[in-house]
């Protein structure tokens, strides 16, 4: 194989496979490497994906991974006031990530990507400061692999982020710790809506989710802000399952069929995700919504862009950060404002007490929640003023400063 125009993708999750597909389409050779030997395992996620991301990335959601079609969501305020958002048509899916990740990876290989599993990156190769490859450990051997561009799609604990200096470590408050059960024998109120529960008692600085997986199965999990809690994520979720009214109604007969853990960056994208000869994408880049914790759609869209730009730069032999910057420019144009605004909104919501969240629940609609989490302006200011609730009005004034109301 010729290494004249090769992109090495580190990480075989949705981000990495999307990078590979994007780069292959743009005519580059691709090698995907992953530390793991089983792509898609273990599952570390809520498994929800909208139709929009894969559509933009021009990657079809693997049919065999789909477990339940979704039309929207139901959010419970701390006082259990619920707000629904449901589209007429299917707008997303709960997928089986084992199948989803594996299938995208297989497709990338079928499209021509070389693969190397069980390969751990231990260092980067550099020439005049430009990344020109990776040094890996594979089957007990140390090997050097050359590439025109190295793409780090290696998750929240990205080795490439560290080695390039794009990110060393996170503050605990930048991370959400997640714990989830996959359950059978559930009796869900809604089977085509994702349910979210907010409140300092159920899930401080985060939320509990109940996602339908079809056949009375569900993915039930929790994400909590790292570093301030006295209980672990698992303890909060177990407490919820035993004591909470919503759990008693829908999950009293439920059995645990799998446990999962995970960690998410919720502090927004890295300052920059590009150095000479390398770039980051997906969780490694911080492509995770600071409020919803969603990341698959962003990973696929940004991955597709990253793959194309990496391939184009590689073909021209111009892989300096000023050229790879095109990737930063393109993904920020799509999602930059959304991430920025959501991060600010997250900060505000973290300071909002449960009573005020309940008041907010009274005046928002499902549509306004969708808009707000997309960083768009909503018309709730007058309704908020009419409540004469001092704290809610104070929150609105802060939101107005952000031009969100």
């Amino acid at each position, binding site marked *: 194989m010729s290494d004249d125009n090769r992109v090495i993708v580190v990480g075989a999750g949705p981000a990495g496979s999307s990078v590979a597909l994007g780069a292959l389409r743009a005519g580059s050779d691709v090698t995907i490497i992953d530390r793991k030997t089983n792509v898609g395992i273990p599952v570390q996620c809520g498994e929800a994906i909208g139709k929009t991301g894969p559509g933009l990335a021009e990657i079809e959601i693997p049919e065999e991974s789909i477990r339940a079609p979704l039309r929207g969501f139901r959010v419970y305020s701390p006082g259990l006031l619920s707000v629904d958002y449901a589209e007429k048509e299917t707008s997303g899916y709960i997928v089986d990530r084992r199948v989803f990740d594996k299938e995208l990876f297989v497709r990338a290989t079928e499209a021509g990507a070389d693969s190397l599993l069980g390969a751990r990156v231990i260092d980067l190769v550099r020439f005049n400061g430009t990344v020109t490859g990776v040094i890996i450990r594979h089957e007990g051997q140390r090997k050097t692999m050359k590439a025109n561009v190295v793409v780090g799609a290696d998750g929240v604990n990205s080795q490439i982020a560290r080695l390039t200096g794009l990110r060393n470590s996170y503050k605990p408050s930048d991370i959400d710790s997640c714990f989830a059960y996959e359950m059978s024998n559930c009796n869900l109120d809604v089977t085509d809506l994702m349910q979210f529960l907010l409140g300092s008692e159920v899930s401080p600085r985060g939320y509990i989710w109940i996602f339908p997986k079809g056949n009375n199965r569900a993915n039930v999990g929790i994400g909590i802000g790292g*570093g301030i809690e006295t209980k672990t994520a698992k303890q909060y979720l177990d407490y919820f399952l035993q004591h909470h009214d919503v759990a008693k109604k829908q999950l009293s007969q439920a059995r645990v069929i799998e446990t*999962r853990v995970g*960690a998410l960056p919720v502090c927004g994208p890295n300052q920059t995700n590009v150095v000479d000869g390398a770039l980051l994408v997906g969780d490694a880049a911080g492509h995770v919504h600071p409020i919803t914790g969603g990341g698959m759609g962003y990973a696929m869209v940004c991955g597709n862009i990253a793959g194309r730009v990496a391939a184009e730069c590689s073909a021209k032999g111009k892989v300096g950060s000023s050229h790879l910057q095109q990737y930063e420019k393109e993904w920020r144009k799509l999602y930059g404002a959304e991430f920025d605004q959501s991060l600010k909104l997250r900060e505000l919501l973290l300071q909002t007490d449960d009573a005020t969240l309940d008041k907010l629940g009274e005046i928002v609609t499902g549509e306004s929640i969708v808009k707000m989490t997309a960083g768009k302006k909503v018309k709730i200011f007058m309704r908020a003023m009419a409540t004469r609730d001092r704290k809610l009005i104070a929150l609105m004034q802060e939101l107005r400063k952000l031009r969100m109301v």
Partner: protein
Amino acid sequence: MSPATSTTKKSAKKLADVDGELCGVCQACATVCPVNAIEVTENYIVIISEKCTGCGVCVKVCPVGAISLINR
């Protein structure tokens, strides 16, 4: 390996310890470790005791309470 190792003052008396039976390898601990003292393999995590400063930040993010600080 990491420049942070030499510059971080060791509070030395403590060391992070993982309960392998509880750990689900989510890597939350590794993402917050300021001195890169936590290595992740496919099935388990390893705390490099020479690097660990016993700061305990990993304990705070573990979703299952699998990490504790022990005396060196």
